[in-house]
C-alpha cells in the first residue's frame, strides 16, 4: 500500500496499534461485515492521482465553463454577478473558520458563535424583523421551510403563491407542499408585473407567499397586504441587496421573511453553495427552523455566546422538531456577515443605488431600440424583463459571440407570452459595457 498524504499512520504505526487492540491483521477489524457483502464489492476503477495530476484534470474541466470573469454578464434570476470583496475569501479560508463544525462546544467556538450572533443581528436589521436564524440551505428551500412553519403555526394547509415568484423557488415549494400535504393556489400578476390583489380572496389560508423584487424584477407594493390577508401569515422572499434601498418587509407586517443571500459576497458557483436567509417575529421563535446563537455569560461573568433554543431542533425533538435541518450553510453566513460589515450602513445603500441606477440606465437604452420594449410598467430594482421581437435564443447566441451573457430567456418558464428576456444589472457593469451591450442587441 502506497502512503497517502492525508493518512499519517505508517505500517509500523499500524503494527503497534493492532498489537494494542489485540488483532493480527487489519482485515479482522471488518469481520462484522457479512462475507457476501465484502465479496460483492467492486471498485470504481480509479487509480489514485497525485495533487499535481488532479489539479491539471480539474482545471481542464473548469476551463470548459463560461464564467463572469470572461463574459460580461447580465444574468440574474436568483443568482447575481455582484462584486465579492477580496478580504472575504481570505478570512473564511482561515482554518479555524473553515475546518470547524457546528459550535457544539461553545468554549472552543466563540468565533463561530460570535459571527452567528452578528449575522442574525444584521439580517434582523436588513429585514426589519425581530429574530433571524444563522442560515438555511438556499432561497428556495428557505421559502419552503417558511411555508412549513406557517402550516405549523396556523394549523392550516392552504397557501396563496404569487405567480411572479421565481419559478425555481416555486418548484421547491411544490415539492415540499406535496410532501407535507399542502395546497398552493396561484395569485396572478397585473399588467405592471405586481401581485394582483383582486385575486386574494381565498379563505382559511395558512399564508400568502410573495417575492420582492419578484422574478420579473418588479418591486412588490406590500402596503396593506398583511391587513388584507388577516390571520394568514405573510411570507416574503426578498433580495437582501435591494433592502439597502427598499422599505423592508418588516415594516409592512411580514410574518416571515426569507431570501437568497448569495448577493451578499458569495460567488455564483454554478448555483451553490448559496445562503438561505430566514427571519420572523419573536413570538414565533420557537417555531423557527435552523440554528441560532444567543448571548450569555460564562462562569466568570463575561459575555459569551452559545447555541440557543436547541430544543426546537431535530437532535433533541426528533420527529417533533421545527425542521430536519442540521448542517446548514454556515460558511456562507460568515461570508455575508463579513460582506455586510465591510460595506457598512452607507455602503450597502450606495451599492443598492448603483444597481438601481445602472439597471434603469440600461432598461431605458434598450427600450428605446426598435423591437425591444420594457415588459412591465411597475417599478424595478436591478432586473427587468424586455420583450423582444426576435427570438431570445438567437439574440443570446449573437450576444455570447460578442462576449456577453445576455440575460435569461423566459420562454421555458411559461409565465409570459411572446419573447421575453430577463436582464440583471449589478454594480459591476460599466456604462461602457452597457453601451456595447445595447449596440450588440441592436445589431443582433
Amino acid at each position, binding site marked *: 500500500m502506497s502512503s497517502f498524504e492525508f493518512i499519517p499512520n505508517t505500517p509500523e504505526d499500524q503494527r503497534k496499534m493492532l498489537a494494542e487492540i489485540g488483532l493480527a491483521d487489519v482485515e479482522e477489524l471488518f469481520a462484522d461485515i457479512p462475507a457476501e457483502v465484502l465479496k460483492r464489492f467492486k471498485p470504481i476503477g480509479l487509480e489514485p492521482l497525485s495533487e499535481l495530476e488532479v489539479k491539471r484534470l*480539474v482545471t481542464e474541466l473548469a476551463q470548459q*465553463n463560461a464564467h463572469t470573469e470572461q463574459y460580461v454578464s447580465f444574468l440574474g434570476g436568483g443568482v447575481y454577478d455582484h462584486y465579492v470583496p477580496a478580504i472575504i475569501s481570505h478570512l473564511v479560508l482561515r482554518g479555524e473558520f473553515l475546518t470547524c463544525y457546528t459550535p457544539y462546544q461553545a468554549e472552543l467556538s466563540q468565533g463561530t458563535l460570535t459571527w452567528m*450572533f452578528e449575522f442574525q443581528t444584521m439580517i434582523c436589521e436588513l429585514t426589519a424583523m425581530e429574530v433571524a436564524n444563522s442560515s438555511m440551505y438556499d432561497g428556495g428551500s428557505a421559502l419552503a421551510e417558511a411555508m412549513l412553519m406557517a402550516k405549523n403555526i396556523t394549523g392550516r394547509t392552504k397557501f396563496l403563491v404569487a405567480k411572479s415568484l421565481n419559478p425555481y423557488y416555486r418548484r421547491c415549494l411544490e415539492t415540499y407542499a406535496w410532501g407535507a400535504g399542502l395546497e398552493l393556489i396561484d395569485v396572478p400578476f397585473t399588467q405592471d408585473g405586481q401581485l394582483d390583489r383582486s385575486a386574494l380572496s381565498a379563505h382559511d389560508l395558512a399564508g400568502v407567499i410573495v417575492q420582492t423584487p419578484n422574478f420579473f424584477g418588479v418591486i412588490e407594493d406590500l402596503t396593506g397586504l398583511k391587513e388584507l390577508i388577516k390571520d394568514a401569515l405573510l411570507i416574503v422572499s426578498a433580495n437582501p441587496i435591494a433592502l439597502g434601498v427598499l422599505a423592508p418587509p418588516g415594516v409592512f407586517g411580514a410574518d416571515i421573511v426569507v431570501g437568497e443571500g448569495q448577493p451578499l459576497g458569495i460567488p*455564483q458557483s454554478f448555483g*451553490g453553495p448559496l445562503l438561505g436567509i430566514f427571519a420572523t417575529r419573536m413570538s414565533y421563535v420557537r417555531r423557527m427552523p435552523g440554528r441560532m446563537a444567543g448571548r450569555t455569560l460564562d462562569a466568570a461573568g463575561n459575555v459569551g455566546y452559545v447555541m440557543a433554543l436547541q430544543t426546537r431542533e431535530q437532535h433533541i425533538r426528533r420527529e417533533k422538531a421545527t425542521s430536519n435541518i442540521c448542517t446548514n450553510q454556515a460558511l456562507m453566513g460568515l461570508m455575508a456577515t463579513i460582506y455586510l460589515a465591510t460595506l457598512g450602513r452607507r455602503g450597502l*445603500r450606495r451599492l443598492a443605488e448603483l444597481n438601481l441606477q445602472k439597471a434603469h*440606465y440600461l432598461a431605458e437604452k434598450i427600450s428605446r431600440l426598435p423591437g425591444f420594449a420594457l415588459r412591465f410598467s411597475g417599478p424595478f430594482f436591478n432586473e427587468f424583463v424586455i420583450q423582444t421581437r426576435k427570438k431570445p435564443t438567437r439574440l443570446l447566441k449573437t450576444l455570447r459571440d460578442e462576449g456577453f451573457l445576455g440575460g435569461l430567456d423566459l420562454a421555458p418558464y411559461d409565465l409570459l407570452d411572446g419573447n421575453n428576456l430577463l436582464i440583471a444589472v449589478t454594480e459591476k457593469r460599466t456604462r461602457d459595457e452597457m453601451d456595447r451591450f445595447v449596440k450588440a442587441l441592436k445589431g443582433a
Partner: protein
Amino acid sequence: MGTTIFDLGEESRTGLRLPALDVPEKNLTELIPPGLIRKEDPKLPNVSQVEVVRHYTKLSRMNYGVDNGIYPLGSCTMKYNPRINEDMARLPGFAHAHPLQGDELSQGALKLMYELGEYLCAIGGMDAITLQPAAGAHGELTGMLLIKKHFERTKELHKRTKILLPDSAHGTNPASAAIVGFEVVPIPSDRRGLVDLEALKAHLNESVAGIMLTNPNTLGLFETDILEITKLVHDVGGFVYYDGANLNAIVGRARPGDMGVDIVHYNLHKTFSTPHGGGGPGSGPVAVVKKLEPYLPVPRIVKEKGKYSLDYKRPHSIGKVHSFYGNFGVLVRAYTYIRMMGDAGLKAVSTHAVLNANYLRARLSKYYKAPYDRICMHEFVLTTKGMSEEIRTLDVAKRLIDYGVHPSSIYFPLIVPEVMMIEPTETVSKEELDRFADALIAVAHEMQENPQMLKEAPHAVPVYGASVRRLDEVRAAKEPILRG
C-alpha cells in the same frame, strides 16, 4: 470576548469604496414609489477594512478546527480538509459560473457532476443519483419524498404510513420522515447495540413504507444482520433507506447496494473531505436503485454523444429540493478528493478510520465504560455512567478542553446515558491519538481525585489574551438574546 463588530467603528467609516456612478443619476423617487423606499438605514456596522480584518482574524482565533488538532466528534467525520479542494472550487470556471448560463457553456461543470455521480454510484453500489440535496438531512428528506412518490404511483400511499427507525438513529432521520407525513416507529436496539430483529419483525407489515438505517450505526457498530433486515423489509414491500453518514467506515471495501439497500445518502462533508465551515455547507447526494430513478429530483444530468445537459423532462420526478443543482462548490471538492484517493486511497481511508477508532477504544475502555466492548467500526461509544456520583460527561468534555484537545460528541446517541461518541478519522496520527487518550485517561483519574476540577472546567481557554470559562446555556435558553 463578547465583542461584536457592532461594538467597533465610527459613523462614516467604510470597509470598501464603491465605483462612482458612471451613468446619469436619477432621483430615487423617480425610480421607486416613495412608499417603497427605505426610510431608515439598517444599523449595519461602520468599520474600516482594517477593523474588519482584525475583528474576524480575532474571532477565528477563538475557534478550534481540524487544522488545530484532533476533533473527534462522533458521527461527524472531522477529517482533514485538503487545501487543493479549496483551490479547485475557486477556479473562475467554477466559482464564477452562473447556474442559468446554459448547457453549452457549462460542459465542464456538468461533466464534473456527471462523473461524480457515477463515482458515488459505484462507491455505493447504486444505480442512479441526485446531487441536489445540500446536506445529509436534505438527502433524507429527498429519500422520504422518493418513497412517498413511489407509493403514490402504486396507489399504496394510504396504507404505507410508517417509517421504522432504530432508536439509535440521528435526530434528522425522524424529523425528515415526519415532514413528509410518515409516522415514525422506533425500533429498539438489542443488547448487541444492533437492531433488535424480533422487535423489527413485530412491526413489519404492509403499513411499512420503509426503514431508515444508519450502518455502521451511531454506536459505531456494523449491523451484522443487514442482509436479513433488508430482506425482511423488502418482503413486506418496504424500502430500505441507508443513512450514509458513517460511510467512512466501509468506503472502498463494502457497498450499501450490496446489502440490499434502496436509497442511500452520502455526506460529502464527512466521507469526502469537504470542510465543515462552522456548520456548513455540506452536500447530501442521494443514490437509488433503478426502480426509484424516475422520481429523482430535476434536473438530472445526462450525457448523450459526449455532451452533457440538464434534463427537466422527468414526469414522475418529485420536483426540486434546491433552487439550482445543489452545493456545486462542495461537489468540486469531493470530486477532487475522490480522484486523488482513487480506489486504493478510499480503501486506505476505511482501514485507518477503523484502526484508529479501535486503537482508541482499546486504550480508553480500560478507564471508561464501554457499553458495547467489542471491535467497533470508525467510531465507538463510552459512558461515564456509574463512574462518579457528581461528575457528568459534560464535565469530562469541558475538562478535556483544558488539555488542548477537542472533546468528542456527547449525549448522542440518546440510548446510552452519559455517552461520549468518539470518531478520530483516518487523518489523525498515532501520536495524536495517544495525546487524546492520555488526556481522557488523566481526566478519568481526576474524576476520582479532584472532581471539582472537572466541574469548573474549562479553566481558561486562551482566546486572544482573554479567556473563556464555562458558558451558561441555561441562561441563554431562559432569556434568549438572539441579536445585538
